[in-house]
C-alpha cells in the first residue's frame, strides 16, 4: 500500500497545533506549505507570522520565520525583501492584524508594490484575543465588543481591504477565496499558487484573502461554521479574482 497524501515538506511533522478543532488556519497552513513545496521556494522562504491565532505558526511551518508586532507584518516583510531580494518573503496575517492595526502598513506596502506575498485570513473576528469585533465583522454579527450585533451606524460596515489594495497599480494579483468546502479549498490552493508565482516572477505584490471559519468565537460547531462562511460571509465578501495584472507586468 502506498501513502497517497504525502506530508508537505515544509510542514513540521507530528506536532499538534494549538488551533481549535476545525479552525480554518490549519487548512490554510497546509495549503501554504504545499504550494511552497510545489513551487520549490521553501528553502529560500521567510514567512512573517502575525500576532493573532497564527502567532505560533513557526511551530508548524518548517521554513525560516519571523514573528511580527501586531499589524506590522508587511512592514517587516518589506524590510526583509528589500534587504534580501533573493529571498521569497510572505506574510501571514489575520483580519485584525492586517485590516485594523496594520491598515497603514497593508495599504502602503501594497501601494509601493513591494515584491512580497500576503496570505490574509479573514475570519470576521479577533480570534486570538477571544472574539472581539474585527473590521471585517459582518453587519449584525455578535461579538464580545459588539454584543448586540455590529451596527453600521455605530461601527460602520465591514471593511473590504483586499478590494482597496486590488485597485493599486502595484498589486499584481489579488483574489478572495474561502476554505469552506473541498472546492473552495482547491481554489484557495490555486490562488495561493498564483500569488506566490508573482513574487517568483518578480512582478510585484500579491494577496490572497481567505475566508476562514473561527468556530470557537462564532460559537458554532465546526460544520455550522463552514456553512456560515459559504452562506453568510461570501455574501458580504464575494469570492473571486479582484485584480490580475500578471499579463501586463510580465
Amino acid at each position: 500500500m502506498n501513502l497517497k497524501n504525502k506530508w508537505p515538506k515544509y510542514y513540521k511533522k507530528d506536532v499538534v497545533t494549538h488551533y481549535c478543532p476545525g479552525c480554518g488556519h490549519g487548512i490554510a497552513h497546509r495549503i501554504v506549505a504545499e504550494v511552497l513545496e510545489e513551487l520549490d521556494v521553501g528553502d529560500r522562504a521567510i514567512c512573517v507570522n502575525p500576532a493573532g491565532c497564527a502567532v505560533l505558526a513557526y511551530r508548524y511551518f518548517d521554513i525560516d520565520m519571523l514573528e511580527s508586532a501586531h499589524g506590522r507584518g508587511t512592514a517587516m516583510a518589506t524590510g526583509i525583501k528589500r534587504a534580501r531580494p533573493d529571498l521569497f518573503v510572505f506574510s501571514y496575517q489575520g483580519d485584525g492584524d492586517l485590516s485594523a492595526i496594520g491598515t497603514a502598513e497593508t495599504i502602503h506596502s501594497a501601494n509601493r508594490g513591494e515584491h512580497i506575498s500576503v496570505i490574509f485570513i479573514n475570519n470576521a473576528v479577533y480570534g486570538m484575543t477571544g472574539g472581539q469585533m474585527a473590521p471585517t465583522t459582518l453587519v449584525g454579527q455578535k461579538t464580545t465588543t459588539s454584543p448586540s450585533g455590529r451596527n453600521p451606524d455605530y461601527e460602520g460596515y465591514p471593511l473590504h481591504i483586499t478590494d482597496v489594495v486590488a485597485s493599486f497599480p502595484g498589486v499584481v494579483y489579488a483574489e478572495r477565496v474561502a476554505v469552506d468546502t473541498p472546492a473552495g479549498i482547491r481554489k484557495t490552493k490555486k490562488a495561493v499558487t498564483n500569488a506566490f508565482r508573482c513574487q517568483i516572477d518578480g512582478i510585484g505584490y500579491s494577496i490572497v484573502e481567505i475566508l476562514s471559519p473561527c468556530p470557537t468565537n462564532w460559537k458554532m460547531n465546526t460544520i455550522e461554521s463552514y456553512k456560515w462562511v459559504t452562506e453568510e460571509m461570501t455574501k458580504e465578501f464575494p469570492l473571486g479574482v479582484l485584480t490580475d495584472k500578471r499579463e501586463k507586468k510580465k
Partner: protein
Amino acid sequence: MNKIFISGNHTFGEAAIRAGCKCYFGYPITPQNELGEYMADRLRKSGGIFVQSESETAAINMVVGASAAGARVMTSSSSPGISLKQEGISFLAGFELPAVIINVMRGGPGLGNIAPAQGDYFQATRGGGHGDYRTPVLAPASVQEIADLTIVAFEIADKYRTPVMLISDGMMGQMKEPVIFPEHVKDLPQKEWALSGRGKGKSRYLASLILDPLEMERHNWKLVRKYKEIEKNEVRHEEYMMEDAEIAVIAYGTTARIAKGAIKRVRSEGIKAGLIRPITLWPFPSRALKDISERIKKFIVFEMSTGQMLEDVQLALAGKASVSFHGRPGGVIPTPAEFARYIYRENQKENKCL
C-alpha cells in the same frame, strides 16, 4: 586633506554608509530631515536601500525585518517619532536584533518645537517601550564624534545583538563642523543567526513571544547578563580639566560643549571646575562618578531638560556628594556665560556654607 565641512545630520548618514549600513528606513521630521534626504541620495547611489516609510512605526518594523535578514540597518527620527518607535524597539530588544536608531531631539512634550533639547533622556535610557530591556545610548558632542560614534553604534549593535540609540539634538544635527571620516568598514561580522531561508538545513525562527513564564524569565535574565556585559565593556566618558577640579560638572552632548566654555571662563576666575561628559548614557559612567566623589563633593548637572540625567548622577553618587542642577528645557540653548554664572553662584554658596 580628507577633512570635510559637513552637518551632523549628513554625518550620521555618511558614517553609517561607511559602517556598512545597507538599509535605511525613516519618516521625515524636523530637525533631522537632512539625514533621510542624504540617505535617499547617497545610500541608494552606493547600492543600499532607502525607503521613506509611511510612518515611524512602519520604519522601525522595516528595520526589524532587514535586521532579521542580516543587514546593518538604521532609522532616525526626532522626539515624537521616536515615541512611535517604542513598541518596535522593545521588539528589537526581545528578538535580540541589532539596529541603530538615531534621535535628533527637539523640544517637548507633544509637538513641542523643533529647537534642540535633551528631554528624551529617560525614554532613551530607561526604555520607553514595555518590558525589561535596556538600550545602549551614545551621545556625541561634536560632528566628528557623530561620525565616530555612529560607527561604534553599529559595532555594539552587532556585537551584542541589541538595538543601539544615538541621541543628539537639533543643534548638533544642523551644525556643520570639520570631520575626518574613516574608511569604509571592510569586513562585516558574520551573522549565523540571521534568517536567510532554511536552505537544506533546519528551519529557524525569531520570536519574542515566549508563552511559558519560566522560559520568558530565563530570557529576561539572559538579557540582564548581556546588559551587565555591556555595562562592563562599553561605558565611555570624557574627563575635562578634572585633574585638580573641586567642582564636577556632568553634562552630555550639546550641554557638555557649553559646559566646557563655561568651565574655561570660571577657571579664569580661579574656580576649579571640571567636566565629566558621559559619552554612553546607558551604560552610565557611574563608577567614574563614584570614584571621583571620594575626592569631590560638589557636582553640578547641566541639561537642556528639567532634570533627567540628574537621576543617574544621584544614583551613581548615592548621597556621597551634593548635586545641584541647572536646566534649560524646551529648546533654549543656554550660553557658556550663563552657565559660568551658575557655576559661580554655586561656588559662592558652597563657600558660604563652609
